[in-house]
């Protein structure tokens, strides 16, 4: 009798809110950490999305005074910084954390506590960034929020041009995010190298795991220079060194090299996971194996390498020699080759399949078309002379939002709908999902298709207002209305996540009839992932189970 009473008490205690909070805060389980990454990214996504909306309201009509120039400069700085470091990086590491051990048949990441440390680093980095709004002269004066742009070009960040602490908030927040990224990258590579289940050779790893490995390797090489640059900037500001302080003879171009040697590969770091999701989702809903697995791996590794030699294409206008400009055109356009291989291989995967238009697949199809267009405008800005006109214009803003929203965010939405049943045990609502897809698709195209045009009409980025006579108004008005449609669609998405968590139909372990190992555990998976360590014989272990007569292992 006594025993049951103690047990009941324990259960009651366990379920108390404080205990739940305690469990989450102290967890080292890769799935919980993954979900915390994803949750915090969603929070920052909403905040940065609101910032984007305010900017679009300001730019909807010429000579608008909705926000002050400085408030606008703060908005685009915070929007960019948040989206890259506290939404993009952390949501992708979140999915990686959640999925990689499950996909390679491991029970956790190699360094669970480093994993928790990495999460809290980036989370508090984001909190610190937003604390800047109440630092300094407080909320009503918008505090000390950074106003130097997410690229923070020297010498605007030097003390003479950035007195106060706004640049320090930016530096420290980005530094924390960098520490977190390197921790996560170390963890992912170590996990993949040392913790694969028996039978899972490198050639049998799911493509997602391959791409996350490449992405993590890139993070080592590129986040480190960024971190170094942040430290040098702090030394300039507080110790009196003159790396970037041009008033004392420092170099503004040095900062650009440091920044873009991180900043460009960063784009590929962000899009590798999007490719990774596409590699899992497109085959399952085409009911076919991925076409050309080795070529996909080679192309990803190729992109990883080439991306390290293209950074100066952000500097075509700084006055490099004709030879250097030509070299960086060559390097930049070379990226189109492995990227093209990827698109064609996805096309070949669809070819001859039985395509199911589930919500994740719809988002993946949207991704294919939009990524194609994003790549083509990328070729345009990669041709240096064309870039002399387009660089720093709204065309570039449209181009990289095509990559970041049209490709990466679409694929993230696909990933959400695809793995939601695994993470929560319930299916996301398909009807709401389709509303979300169509509305977001329309909003996206209204916003970013038309955003190319003011760029061609000579509208620079980072301006808080413009004159009516330039002929930009009608395009800006269209773009701003598209942003509102995207916002409504995002609300539907968030509502779907919440509603389905409580009301969605139970999913079971494998609702999509998929083939990788994560679908062999219960949904959500138990804390230890696998009761018995799985053994695999091919790239699609669950296909082998379901089709013993036609096992993949015969073909590899």
């Amino acid at each position: 009798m006594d025993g049951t009473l103690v047990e009941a008490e324990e259960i009651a205690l366990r379920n108390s809110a404080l205990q739940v909070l305690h469990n989450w805060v102290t967890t080292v389980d890769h799935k919980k950490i993954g979900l915390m990454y994803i949750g915090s990214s969603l929070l920052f996504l909403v905040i940065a999305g609101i910032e984007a909306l305010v900017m679009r309201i300001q730019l909807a009509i010429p000579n608008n005074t909705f926000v002050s120039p400085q408030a606008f400069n703060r908005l685009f700085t915070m929007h960019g910084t948040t989206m890259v470091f506290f939404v993009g990086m952390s949501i992708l590491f979140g999915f990686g954390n959640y999925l990689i051990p499950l996909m390679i048949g491991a029970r956790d990441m190699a360094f669970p506590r480093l994993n928790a440390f990495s999460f809290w680093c980036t989370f508090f980095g984001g909190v610190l960034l937003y604390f800047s709004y109440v630092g300094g002269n407080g909320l009503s004066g918008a505090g000390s929020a950074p106003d130097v742009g997410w690229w923070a070009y020297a010498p605007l960040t030097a003390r003479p041009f950035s007195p106060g602490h706004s640049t320090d908030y930016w530096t420290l927040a980005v530094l924390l995010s960098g520490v977190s990224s390197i921790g996560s990258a170390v963890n992912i590579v170590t996990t993949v190298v040392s913790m694969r289940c028996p039978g899972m050779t490198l050639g049998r790893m799911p493509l997602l795991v391959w791409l996350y490995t490449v992405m993590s390797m890139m993070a080592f090489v590129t986040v480190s220079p960024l971190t170094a640059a942040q430290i040098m900037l702090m030394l300039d500001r507080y110790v009196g060194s003159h790396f970037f302080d041009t008033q004392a003879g420092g170099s503004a171009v040095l900062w650009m090299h440091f920044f873009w040697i991180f900043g460009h590969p960063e784009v590929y770091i962000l899009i590798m996971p999007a490719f990774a999701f596409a590699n899992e989702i497109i085959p399952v809903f085409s009911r076919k194996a991925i076409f050309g697995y080795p070529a996909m791996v080679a192309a990803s590794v190729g992109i990883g390498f080439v991306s390290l030699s293209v950074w100066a294409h952000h500097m075509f206008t700084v006055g490099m020699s004709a030879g250097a400009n030509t070299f960086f055109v060559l390097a930049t356009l070379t990226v189109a080759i492995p990227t093209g291989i990827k698109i064609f291989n996805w096309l070949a995967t669809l070819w001859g399949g039985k395509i199911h238009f589930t919500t994740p697949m719809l988002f993946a199809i949207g991704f294919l078309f939009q990524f194609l267009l994003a790549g083509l405008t990328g070729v345009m800005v990669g041709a240096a002379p064309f870039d002399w006109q387009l660089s720093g214009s709204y065309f570039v803003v449209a181009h990289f939002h095509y990559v970041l929203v049209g490709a990466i965010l679409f694929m993230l939405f696909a990933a959400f709908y695809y793995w939601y049943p695994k993470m929560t045990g319930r299916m996301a609502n398909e009807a709401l999902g389709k509303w979300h897809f169509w509305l977001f698709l329309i909003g996206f195209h209204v916003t970013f298709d038309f955003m190319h045009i003011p760029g061609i009409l000579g509208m620079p980025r980072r301006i808080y207002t413009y004159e009516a006579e330039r002929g930009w108004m009608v395009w800006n008005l269209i773009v701003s209305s598209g942003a509102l449609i995207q916002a409504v669609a995002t609300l539907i998405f968030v509502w779907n996540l919440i509603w389905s968590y409580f009301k969605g139909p139970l999913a079971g372990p494998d609702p999509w009839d998929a083939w990788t190992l994560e679908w062999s555990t219960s949904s959500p998976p138990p804390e230890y992932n696998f009761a018995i360590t799985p053994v695999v014989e091919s790239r699609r272990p669950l296909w082998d189970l379901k089709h013993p007569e036609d096992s993949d292992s015969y073909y590899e």
Partner: protein
Amino acid sequence: MANTQHSIAVLFAPDVVHGPTSIFSPAGTPAHSIFGLSMLVLGVALCVFVIVGGLLAYAIIRYRHRRHDVKAGEEPAQIYGSNQIELSWTVIPVLIVAMLVLSSARVIYSTQQAAKPTAALDVIVIGHQFWWEYRYPKLGIVTANELHVPVSDPRHPTPTYLTLSSADTDHSFWIPRLAGKTDLIPNRVNIMWIDPPTAGLYLGQCAQFCGAQHAKMLLRVYADSPEEFSNWVKRQRDPVKEDPNTVEGEAVFQHNACISCHTVAGTVATGRFGPDLTHVASRDTIGSGAVLNTPANLRLFVDNPAHFKPGALMPPMHLNEHDLDAVTAYLLTLK
């Protein structure tokens, strides 16, 4: 060739071709050669999009799963790859990339390493937060915000070579109809050239974020016929004429902080932090294009620059009404 390029531009977006700062309305050699390359790149991109996008659309429609499929339970044939096919879609992009790289290189070299004609005009451009300083070393002229250059006749080219540098943060000089942009970077000197073929006003603005008022660092380039240009040069070299009616305004100007930032040639005002005001009344706009140069706007600008340009580095002058009127009257005589 030019016609084909134009028709591709029209095809892309009919209304886009024209506009005061449209890169699709090029004027002058650098802008034209960039425009030619742009049309080539756009054409290639359009072809690739139609072909690949078409194939994707076809695959998605043709191979969609039908609910009442007889063989609903059956999986399609599993195809794992094909080296021949994959090789072909590697080689074709390689050829396209090679073509684009070579075409880009040609424009890069022809623009960056063009021989400088002896008749070229030299102008030193210095970017400031948030205005432009122009110095004509051979003509002995210093002015601000409104750049006058001669029209360049293709038979006797008189291009203008701009030597770009910065006094504070990064800026970028961008007149979309005349040439691509080039940055102005502290501790560094960049060169670019323009050769407007027809007289008129070409607009542009700073294209590199340079601080609070980056948005209102507008550029105005006046391409003058040879006669107009030499007249303009003559007027700019004229010394300031003493006007007995504005002695009081001049005194206000000289006894307040104005002279620590502004120059009026031939007077004690030799400040270099703000725009040279020697011939300020001859300019169409003030505040680097922020507003038209009318007496009312000028008075308001002197009183409180933040009214038109919040974030501008000139502080409010706190002059009384009388002094404001006097100083405005003085500035209006500086033609």
